[in-house]
């Protein structure tokens, strides 16, 4: 055995490898991205790993591999499960042969997501089991259990860590060598693998008969645990259990329940845990899932137990829990007043706010600025998308009018166009997002004859989630160099007639390209091509000469974090500047020099 200090996502990867996983596929999304990176780092032997083009593709690749009897892992963030839902909902009816675990990482807060959706609800909707780890150590063990249950019941299972589990670090003891499982291979059987209404009818009935059995099985599951005793009970799951434990570690007079398998609900276990209990507090994040299931269970069994939680207003309905909220909520439930141990900071001075911004030298800043300048004074709408470039909404750029979900900018630009044909409608999409879910939107625009300007912000990486490769980078997760998929050729093949590729850091050329496309009708595309500054060597640094008249136009126009005011003068923060030279092209008196684009 060896010890590895890894984040929760690393623990999940090590657990999957220890379980003999054969194939791992996913799409990057915070907080799930590092699982696949850790699989690549620690794998031994023949494990196929891929960043799929999106979550649906990942789910399908893993599904058919699991039909072969192989163990497969799919990773995504919670909203990725919406993209993959079509595949998963049907797969739940068909089932699998090898163990298939779908990791969908939830993000209470939300910290880096658009929604606070709850994967446990999805599990019930899809009628498949879900596992809910409360720490990295538990995640390591639990994902191995998840593979076993998946195989035992021939169903895909969900595994849902949350951000604080994914991003917490712990020491994991794991075998020196792991070995992918031997598997049988695909055995043709159209009555099993081809979904038809008749098969769905039969299998739906089987699933409903099976699930109470899984609930019964889960009643003796090792991570569904009870400690303490008494008439008051706290039920928690996931990281909320860890927060509650901080408060309850010296409270043996309180029954404390950890529920690691929310669905199928382990009724026998819960009924046993509630013997003699009069009041229960459900302490959970996102949806009141356990609370609702508990109310059903108590109602069906006619128990005289009072339940409180989110539905009764005792636990906040949104946002994440914490040790502090655990102390105040559980304290109030027990009739205690928790003492505040910290320093009183109620008199602290007002602090500067630090909204996240595009990095100094980020080519997205230049792309947005080129469009902004080209369209100054003209009625235009700017539809943004998911990625670093959502930050183009910040002042002074203010170039994102809408942002909804992956790929939506392209189609939303069309909706705005149909409702307001006087306006020029722009869609901004990153290279990875274009491959993930942008292409169908372009075809939609062509087919329905919309007018729009597509701006592909091609920085040759998936920057926001940690620089994962994608089909346009020419590199895959097996470490192979592959042909780059050309965005330009895709657009050309679809029938986009005007496609311009420009370097956004060459401001005048970029502005001219935008002006040209804005004048034409139909679907036009500009590919703003310049690599992410986080993965390229800086070009140098700009310098500001004494010609500077202090007009601050550079700061007011582009808001680059490397341009700061020191002692009343505009100066360059040399640790941040990459020498992109955009500011030099904006300075009205040519006071900025030293970069490539002088």
């Amino acid at each position, binding site marked *: 055995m060896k010890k590895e200090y890894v984040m929760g996502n690393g623990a999940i990867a090590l657990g999957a490898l220890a379980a003999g996983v054969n194939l791992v596929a996913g799409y990057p999304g915070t907080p799930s991205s590092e699982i696949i990176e850790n699989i690549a780092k620690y794998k031994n032997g023949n494990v196929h790993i891929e960043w799929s083009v999106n979550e649906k593709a990942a789910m399908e690749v893993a599904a058919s591999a699991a039909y072969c009897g192989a163990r497969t892992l799919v990773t995504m963030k919670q909203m990725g499960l919406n993209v993959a839902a079509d595949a998963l909902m049907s797969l739940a009816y068909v089932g699998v042969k090898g163990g298939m675990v779908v990791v969908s990482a939830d993000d209470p807060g939300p910290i880096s997501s658009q929604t606070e959706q709850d994967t446990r609800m999805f599990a019930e909707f899809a009628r498949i089991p879900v596992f809910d780890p409360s720490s990295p150590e538990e995640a390591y063990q639990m994902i191995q259990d998840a593979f076993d249950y998946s195989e035992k019941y021939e169903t895909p299972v969900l595994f849902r860590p949350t951000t604080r589990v994914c991003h917490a670090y712990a020491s994991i003891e794991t075998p020196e060598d792991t070995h992918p499982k031997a598997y049988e291979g695909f055995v043709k059987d159209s009555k099993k693998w081809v979904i038809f209404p008749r098969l769905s009818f039969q299998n739906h009935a089987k699933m409903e008969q099976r699930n109470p059995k899984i609930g019964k099985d889960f009643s003796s599951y090792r991570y569904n645990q009870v400690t303490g005793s008494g008439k008051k009970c706290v039920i928690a799951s996931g990281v909320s259990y860890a927060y509650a434990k901080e408060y309850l570690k010296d409270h043996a007079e309180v029954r404390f329940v950890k529920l690691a398998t929310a669905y199928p609900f382990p009724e026998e276990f819960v009924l046993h845990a509630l013997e003699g209990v009069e009041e229960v507090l459900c302490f959970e994040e996102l949806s009141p899932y356990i609370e609702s299931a508990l109310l059903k269970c108590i109602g069906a069994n006619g128990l005289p137990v009072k339940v409180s939680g989110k539905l009764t207003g005792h636990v906040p309905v949104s946002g994440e829990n914490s*040790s*502090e909220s655990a102390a105040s909520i559980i304290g109030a439930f027990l009739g205690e007043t928790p003492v505040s141990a910290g320093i009183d900071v109620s008199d602290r001075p007002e602090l500067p706010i630090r909204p996240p911004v595009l990095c100094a030298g980020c080519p997205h800043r230049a792309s947005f600025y080129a469009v902004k300048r080209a369209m100054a004074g003209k009625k235009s709408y700017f539809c943004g998308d998911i990625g670093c470039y959502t930050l183009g909404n910040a002042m002074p750029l203010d170039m994102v009018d809408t942002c909804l979900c992956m790929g939506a900018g392209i189609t939303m630009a069309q909706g705005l166009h149909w409702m307001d044909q006087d306006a020029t409608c722009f869609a901004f999409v990153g290279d990875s997002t274009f491959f993930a879910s942008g292409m169908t939107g372009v075809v939609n625009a062509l087919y329905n004859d919309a007018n729009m300007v597509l701006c592909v912000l091609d920085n040759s990486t998936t920057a926001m989630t940690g620089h994962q490769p994608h089909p346009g980078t020419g590199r895959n997760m097996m470490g192979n160099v592959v042909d780059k998929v050309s965005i330009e050729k895709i657009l050309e093949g679809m029938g986009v007639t005007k496609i311009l590729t420009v370097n956004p850091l060459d401001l005048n050329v970029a502005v001219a390209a935008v002006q040209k496309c804005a004048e034409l009708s139909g679907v036009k595309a500009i590919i703003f091509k310049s690599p992410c500054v986080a993965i390229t060597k800086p070009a140098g640094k700009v310098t500001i000469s004494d010609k500077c008249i202090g007009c601050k136009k550079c*700061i007011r126009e582009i808001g680059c974090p490397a341009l700061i005011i020191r002692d009343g003068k505009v100066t360059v923060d040399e640790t941040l500047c990459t020498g992109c030279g955009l500011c030099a092209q904006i300075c009205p008196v040519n006071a900025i020099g030293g970069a490539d684009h002088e």
Partner: protein
Amino acid sequence: MNKDILLCGVGGQGTVLASKLIAAAAMREGHTVHSAETIGMAQRGGSVTSHIRIGDDIGSPLIPFGSAEMILAFEPAEAVRNLHYLKPDGILIVNRTPVKPTTESLHETGYDGVKEITYLKTKCNCVVIDGEALCAPFGSARYLNMIELGAVSATGMLGISEETLLAELEAQVKPQFVETNKKAFLAGREAGRKNETE
């Protein structure tokens, strides 16, 4: 040993590496360690924290308010922002050099960190270091993390020996940068010592 240590600063200041070194050094000395990092969008110029929890009996991956033995603050406003994590008798190591948010260049509020340092001195036991001056000989603010690490080591309250910290530094920093990082660590240690005797 049970010890909670919080690191805070602004995305890009190198808190993550400093946190990794402390965690790894504590493990090298046989302790159980848990930690948690800010990951994602906030790394781009936002406020970031690293929570390190040393000891066996850990519930939450995040340090509860009022229970950190020490805070390593890379920036004055971030020190104030996270002060509620500190135990009343804990110690704060803080860099007095402010990092102005980009919004500051657009709408000046006059933030310079001075008011914050004064406030911190009235609230807790603190060691103030001049990050800008200490980084100057190295030609880059990127050495601030090693300077902070040296300063915290000088307090003697970390519970991890200097040898172990330096051994981890050697193990985790790219070979060509080890010497300069060691020098920065020692400069930080001197600064931490001087400050205590003042």
